[in-house]
């Protein structure tokens, strides 16, 4: 008996089983490779496609342009600048927190009304009627030299409106 034979006898696998296992391992490796290939391909695209518009800080305008109790759309920042009746500024994202539609301000009703599923939001972005699960997101507002500046880099989520979310002069 040769060396190899004894070793095979020790493992108790025949030649055919041995090769079948090799094919199985190779097959699984190929599957894993293709899976990894696909996922890395898709994931790289996701990272590469970060928003091309690096808006950063948007100049909304002078303080005097915004009267208390009004809402002004600022298209270049994709947000609304709401001036609360007490004079505070609040930058509200125009994206509905329910399913991402763009919410227009309805002057007559004095509310944001979502055209997709009918959620309504108050001047402060709070939910008046569902199905939206939380108030409109906000962006940080600063006031420099009488100009209102909004940092659009990242929207802030919130569960309710609190007075300190608004920026006062």
């Amino acid at each position, binding site marked *: 008996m040769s060396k190899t034979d004894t070793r095979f006898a020790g493992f108790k696998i025949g030649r055919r089983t041995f090769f079948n296992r090799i094919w199985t391992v190779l097959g699984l490796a190929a599957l894993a490779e293709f899976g990894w290939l696909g996922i890395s391909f898709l994931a790289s695209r996701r990272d590469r496609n970060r928003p091309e518009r690096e808006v950063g800080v948007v100049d909304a305008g002078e303080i005097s342009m915004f009267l208390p109790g009004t809402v002004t759309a600022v298209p270049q920042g994709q947000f609304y600048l709401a001036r609360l009746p007490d004079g505070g500024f609040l930058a509200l994202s125009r994206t509905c927190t329910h399913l991402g539609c*763009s919410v227009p301000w309805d002057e007559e009703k004095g509310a944001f009304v979502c*055209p*997709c599923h009918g959620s309504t939001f108050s001047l402060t972005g709070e939910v008046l009627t569902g199905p939206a699960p939380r108030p409109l997101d906000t962006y940080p507002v600063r006031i420099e030299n009488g100009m209102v500046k909004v940092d659009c880099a990242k929207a802030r989520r919130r569960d309710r409106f609190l007075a300190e979310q608004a920026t006062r002069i």
Partner: protein
Amino acid sequence: MKASRQSITDFILHLHPRTVPYPTIRFRLSWGLGGMAVVLTGLLFLTGALLLLAYRPTLEEAYGSVRALGRDIPLGYWVRNIHHASANLLAVVAVLHLLRTALTGAFGPGRRLNWTIGLGLLVFVLAANFTGYLLPWDQLAYWAVTVSMAALGYIPLCGDWLRGVIQGGPEIGQATLSNFYVLHVAVIPGSLLVLLLWHFWLVRRAGGLISTSEGGEPIRRIPVVPNLIAREAAVGLSLVAFVLFLAMFWNAPLLEQANPGMSPNPTKAPWYFQGLQELLLHLHPVFAAFVWPFLGGAALLLLPLIPGSALPGGVWFGSERGRGLAAWAAGGGALLAVAAVLADNALRQPGVGMAADALIARGIVPTSAVILLAAGGYWLLVKAANRTRAEAVMAGLVAGFAILTVLTVVGVFFRGAEMHLVWPWHGTGGSL
């Protein structure tokens, strides 16, 4: 000449068995729905190949290339209309085919795997419809996709990841369009073709369509050529004629070019998803977008695994008695859905948001109510009314589809601006 004709006959015979049981060629057993689905799929492949020549999948050119179909290419818009009409009809036919299969008891032992494959095919048909919806890059497309991508995000654990992969980035853009394009013209049609062949083969292996086994008497079999072939040709050609005719008058919609800053009012999903959209108006998004579809899908998938859940094969509703029960179930389900929509509409007042407790009030409570109702109905039918399990399952299925139908009809015709309930003749809605 003789040899080639022989070859054609052989090819047809190879796709079919040589003979089929006589009762299965009766039109009113199958209504030819499976065959219709095949014909529509064929039309979709043909017109799709033509459209592929004209369409350009980039943000800048997509809308213009669809618009140009109507202007620059002779009969181009007709081709698009045929594609659109076939796709919409296919969604209807596929669901009816599923119902036919269930209501004639054709998912029992020997056909279980094929039921599962059929469900897979339905998912692919809906996915194909939906991915195609985005490609024109008009307002309709853009916002329907925005809403559905946001809905994906509500799936627990992997929702955001899934959304990122399908969307190809944090925002809807070129990557999304490319993804949907590849899915629509390569991945889905390819998978559909493989599953279709498997579907046919399993029908053949199960001995053709479901038929009644009449007490030991051998079922008479008749040759496929010409009996079945002639019937298939009659149904298929009539359907082709109907679709071509329909496509002359029913224009595929094309709104203005997509504008990420302005959602149309009302924004509606494609009609086959408006039942789902109606749920989104009433339930917490996690339940409307994930829990309920998941439960519904799981129920359909597990249906054939329950022993004794299939009706006696080859007879609609199992028996004359079953037919009555099905009518009651459909009526009951429809009434329930109308009542629920109206009641919730009356309840929804300003100030009642979907706040922290919404997960319970608009999620767990209605879900438990539906499960209790289903369990109670089952118990009543089986224990009190002495019906078989198969009949109770059939009643549940019929009621479920009646509810889905009502929700879809409400969504399509009775929802106007800001998704308020309106009469269809007052409304401005409609996305067909």
